[in-house]
């Protein structure tokens, strides 16, 4: 009775807070606090494995060190190149597949299921089995390529020229279905009367695609690319299993480098600064991207 009375006295706002309170607390505990802690650590020379050693405040030293390190910039370049090619290929192939599957034909549903399958696999598993597919002696990949044109024996993972492409191919194979599904949702939301009106105006298929389909599907495609961009910026498991970041550092993405600095070399302060820089980078790019996307939507 007392409890009932108490709740009766609460305003709508208070009840609202009561509902979202636990979530906010959880968010603060597992997201915001670690972020603030990492920022704090980034200004120290803390090593998590050196038990008993008191961390000292070093100011911006870690940030300067990260930004001046040539190897870090090399890894950022590898990450940028990986993102550029995977997003480009996934956008083009994903949209193409969506256009294909938007038509009605026999076996459409079965084909959609088959195309979507890679996306459902674990990235670590994908990394492992592609190492076998890429094996220059017994791998299916080399066999298929040589079936069309005899390139002889080539090592996708062991060559510094081919290894970056090996991870782009696997990521594209795995995640193009995601882009395709989002584009397909966009295509199915385009009302038919637009095409009918275009036909009345004697617009050809190319013009219909350029002035109706593409503008309608573009916001969906951009959203899919935003998700894929964020995911690929922090790509780790698949690449570690496939190439371990090698040969040399040809496929060492920023996230792999960060893990090595933080949990293998245990340079906690330094790697916190590195993590903050990566966070600001992706957060900044993400914000700009969303603003551009909103402008496109408004058109």
């Amino acid at each position: 009775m007392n409890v009932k009375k108490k709740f009766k006295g609460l305003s709508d706002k208070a009840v609202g807070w009561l509902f979202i309170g636990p979530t906010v607390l959880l968010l603060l505990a597992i997201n915001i606090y670690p972020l603030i802690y990492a920022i704090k650590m980034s200004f120290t020379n803390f090593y998590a494995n050196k038990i008993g050693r008191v961390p000292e405040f070093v100011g911006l030293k870690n940030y300067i060190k990260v930004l001046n390190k040539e190897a870090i910039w090399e890894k950022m370049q590898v990450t940028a190149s990986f993102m550029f090619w995977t997003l480009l290929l996934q956008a083009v192939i994903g949209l193409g597949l969506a256009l294909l599957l938007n038509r009605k034909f026999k076996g459409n549903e079965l084909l959609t299921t088959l195309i979507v399958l890679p996306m459902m696999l674990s990235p670590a598993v994908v990394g492992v089995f592609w190492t076998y597919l890429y094996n220059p002696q017994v791998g299916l990949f080399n066999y298929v390529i040589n079936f069309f044109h005899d390139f002889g024996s080539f090592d996708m993972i062991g060559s510094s020229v081919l290894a970056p492409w090996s991870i782009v191919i696997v990521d594209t194979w795995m995640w193009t279905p995601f882009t395709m599904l989002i584009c397909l949702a966009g295509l199915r939301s385009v009302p038919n009367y637009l095409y009918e009106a275009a036909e009345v105006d004697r617009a050809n298929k190319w013009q219909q695609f350029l002035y109706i389909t593409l503008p309608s599907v573009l916001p969906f495609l951009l959203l899919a690319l935003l998700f894929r961009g964020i995911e690929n910026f922090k790509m780790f498991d698949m690449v570690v299993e496939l190439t371990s970041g090698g040969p040399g550092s040809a496929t060492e993405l920023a996230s792999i480098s960060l893990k090595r600095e933080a949990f293998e070399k245990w340079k906690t302060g330094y790697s916190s600064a590195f993590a903050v820089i990566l966070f600001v980078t992706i957060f900044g790019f993400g914000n700009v991207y969303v603003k551009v996307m909103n402008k496109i939507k408004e058109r």
Partner: protein
Amino acid sequence: MRGKKMKKIMILLFVSLFSFSANSNAKSITLGWAAWDPANALQELTKEFTAETGIEVNFEFVPWPNFADRMLNELNNKGKTFDLLIGDSQWIGSGAVYGHYVKLNDFFDKEGISMNDFSPATVYAYSTWPKGSKNYYALPAMGDALAWAYRKDWFDRPELKSEFKKKHGYDLGVPANWNQLHDMCSFFQGREIDGQKRYGAAINTERGSEGITMGVTAAMYAWGMEYENPNKPYDMEGYFNSPKAVEAVEFYRKLYEDCAPPGHSDAYMVANLDAYKSGQVAFQMNWYAFWPGVSKEDKDGRVSGFFANPKQNVAAATLGGQGISVVKYSDKQDLALEYIKWFARPDVQQKWWDLGGYSCHNDVLDSPSFPTSTVYAQGFLDSMGIVKDFWQEPTFVELMLPMQEAIHDYVVNGKGTAKGALDKIIEEWVEVFEADGKL
């Protein structure tokens, strides 16, 4: 009726709870090691310990690529999962300095366990910190060094022998130095034997953990590389990147380019074994720990020969192997120490060798029958007299990773020069030693 059912359920629940608590009270310890052949031998051997003492030993074996990550994280987090740990030789520094391992001196004195009963090289490498001191943090458990296995059956073929002699002017056999090793490996590269294309050698090229470093140092030690100025610790300039060290790294790249099978760009223990067992290669570089398995599995005409790391300017081999330590955070240190006491017994050490483990006990190694007890026993003895190890500093992981990256970049990726790679490693190492207060 319902009450009776409820009563039965309550009794069952009580009985199962009681049996669970009785079980959890049973004496047991957990031992952590890498997942490989010797671990299975130890599991077999340990059955006798359980029979003698009633102490159950649970094992957690972690695959090599994740071994260091898993175990070092456990120690850094003061985990209680393991009571005993067979950790890599390079961990002894961090185990001692950061207090992960129990110091065993008092225990050894009390139980009459003398380190003089164990091979000096293994005591130095696996047990002591600071190096060479009389502070013991482990009992030498598994002696090991990097060595070579070769296809003796191919070497014995008259047509191949005469062709090789004609080409190189000396007999095809165990290589006396690295130049001969290269001659022999390249002799088999791309050669068709019994209708199958074969290759020269499966060597270490793995990048993620320690593989390529363990491989390239086998060459660097043989060329006479030193990590630092013997009179000025941590002074590496002109030692680690000396002309002979550079030559050794260049040679290792040549060996990789001329003799490795296709796709062997990220290979270590298991990949080398696979390449050898599948008949792809004439030679494989690997640890002695694997030779009992290789020798036992010789079939379909395959006959394996084994030899210690060839010398070049000096005789030297890369040290492997581990000591067994008691984890400081364990609640069952007394039981763990009881295991070490049992394991140190000469009769147990003999059984350890018989089962495929590499004992470091002098009674086993000095036995007149030891050199002929297996085809690789003499090689093991030879190797243990010439072993050299990577840094055993508490910061060894920080020291290992830049070397892995720079050497892989040069040897496998073909980027830059050997001198450039070694200079880059020194630069990173100086940074690590400075942060650690050593420089």
